[in-house]
């Protein structure tokens, strides 16, 4: 399992109810179910992945997070997880609002467009950055709304979304993001991991 999932799993409290939005083939769900006794549900857009999840005995519905979160009642989950897909939505703000409506807390991870390699790529090569976390060409990328850790941090502050935890992830290491080190983390981290609530 990738390191990012381990960090997410650490943020989820045991014996709670969680929804994995865009759960893929269910690796994180399986881990949370088996290791943290989470009552876990998933929503996934790809039929193939839904079928894989079903094969693992996971409860997943095929659906589009942008349209289908509406069916879940307010605060029906303790945690709602969104891993590296926020930037792919037509309207990320609506999705964030939905995550925070459906879940008491949400865990959101974002590939950081402020990472120095990304900035350098654009500065030196003058073409759209391609990195490990952003592997697609500009014409094939599903990412419509790239943002930086700083953007997301500011977004939460402006929208009065409480940042319970803000973590920077780079080279298999995590560190806390604070107001005081925001500019540095925004340059040095590949990934931002946020535990938020309204």
């Amino acid at each position, binding site marked *: 399992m990738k390191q990012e999932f381990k960090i997410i799993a650490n943020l989820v409290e045991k014996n709670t109810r969680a929804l994995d939005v865009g759960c893929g083939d269910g690796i994180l769900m399986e881990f949370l179910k088996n290791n943290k006794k989470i009552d876990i549900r998933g929503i996934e857009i790809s039929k193939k992945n839904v079928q894989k999840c079903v*094969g693992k005995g996971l*409860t997943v519905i095929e659906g589009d997070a942008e349209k289908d979160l509406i069916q879940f009642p307010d605060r029906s989950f303790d945690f709602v997880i969104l891993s590296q897909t926020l930037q792919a939505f037509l309207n990320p703000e609506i999705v964030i609002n939905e995550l925070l409506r459906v879940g008491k807390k949400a865990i959101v991870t974002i590939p950081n467009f402020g990472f120095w390699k990304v900035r350098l790529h654009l500065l030196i090569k003058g073409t759209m950055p391609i990195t490990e976390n952003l592997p697609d060409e500009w014409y094939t990328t599903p990412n419509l709304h790239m943002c930086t850790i700083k953007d997301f941090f500011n977004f939460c502050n402006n929208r009065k979304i409480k940042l319970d935890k803000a973590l920077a992830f780079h080279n298999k290491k995590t560190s806390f993001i604070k107001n005081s080190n925001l500019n540095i983390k925004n340059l040095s981290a590949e990934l931002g991991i946020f535990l938020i609530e309204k």
Partner: protein
Amino acid sequence: MNNINKTKKIIVDKPLKLDCGKIINNFPIAYETYGTLNEKKDNAILVFHALTGDQFVSGVNPITKKDGWWSYAVGPDKAMDTNKYFVICSNVIGGCMGSYGPSDIDPTTNKILGTTFPVVTINDMVNAQYNLLDFFKIDKLFCVIGGSMGGMQVLQFINNFPNKAKIAVPIACTASHSAQNIAFNELGRQSIMADANWLNGNYSNENSNPNKGLSVARMAAHITYLSKKGLQEKFGRKLQKRDDLKFSFDADFQIESYLRHQGSVFVDRFDANSYLYITRAMDYFDLIKQHDGNLSKAFIQSKTKFFVISFTSDWLYPTSENKDIVIALNAIGADVGFVEIESDKGHDSFLLNVPEFLSTLKNFINTSYLMN
């Protein structure tokens, strides 16, 4: 219909009050089973059949001599593996394969009931079939499953008996029969009733049969079970055993010949009055209305794990209607999975060899059986 007396039956002596108000007593339920009920009695799957189905899910149907209607899904090593599970299926009341229906004889007059048979509902069908649990002394089923009208019975079963099944699989169905579906059913009924041989439903007593009407009803319905793309790919404008158009009303096109064949084989195995009664039951089905507009209430008492399946090319019971069931279940935090299977085979997909459907179903059933 010969050989019907050879089918297995239970006689239900507990009176059943139908939705129409009438009470029925000592009525037969014809059933078939596959596989073996284990000692713990926790491996039973109750399959509900669709409009023109019957209790012969798998193997060879002893009456039609054809494969059982769900042979792709039920049998040794199939999605519902009869090496592991005990599969029960019974003919719905109103049907014509041995369960109480309009082709039964009224003991007071010694005549065939015909349209004096009471109008039954999906709810009545489910309540009647519930007697099989008592008969087999099964406290809780492992699974209730069915497609189309079978799926409606799954939903009604959980509504009526919230904790009598560990898992429920409604496939290609709806919680409320749509105007379009009522319209198609009415077309079929009118076709039967327009046949001069229908005789107000009294044809059997007069040695007559509305074969033409029933056949046209089947032809029209059959179109709704397929998709435009599926029809086009299979038949296109191909001609039937001829090089050119004949400038007549013969079956020039293969699709015409195919539909005529479907109609003609259907009348050999199905009773016209049963067709009227069962389509009526489908039309009356509205689980949403049963709960004053809130479908979630139908399932609120239940701890059953649901898996809803729809098909991309099914326009008769489209994904949107299947999703409404999922939405109602999610609204109450029920355990529900959902997948829409890609298929060109229309509503009939659930009956056919659609590998992704069958493997997904198999996975769901097997993993659910292992879970506590």
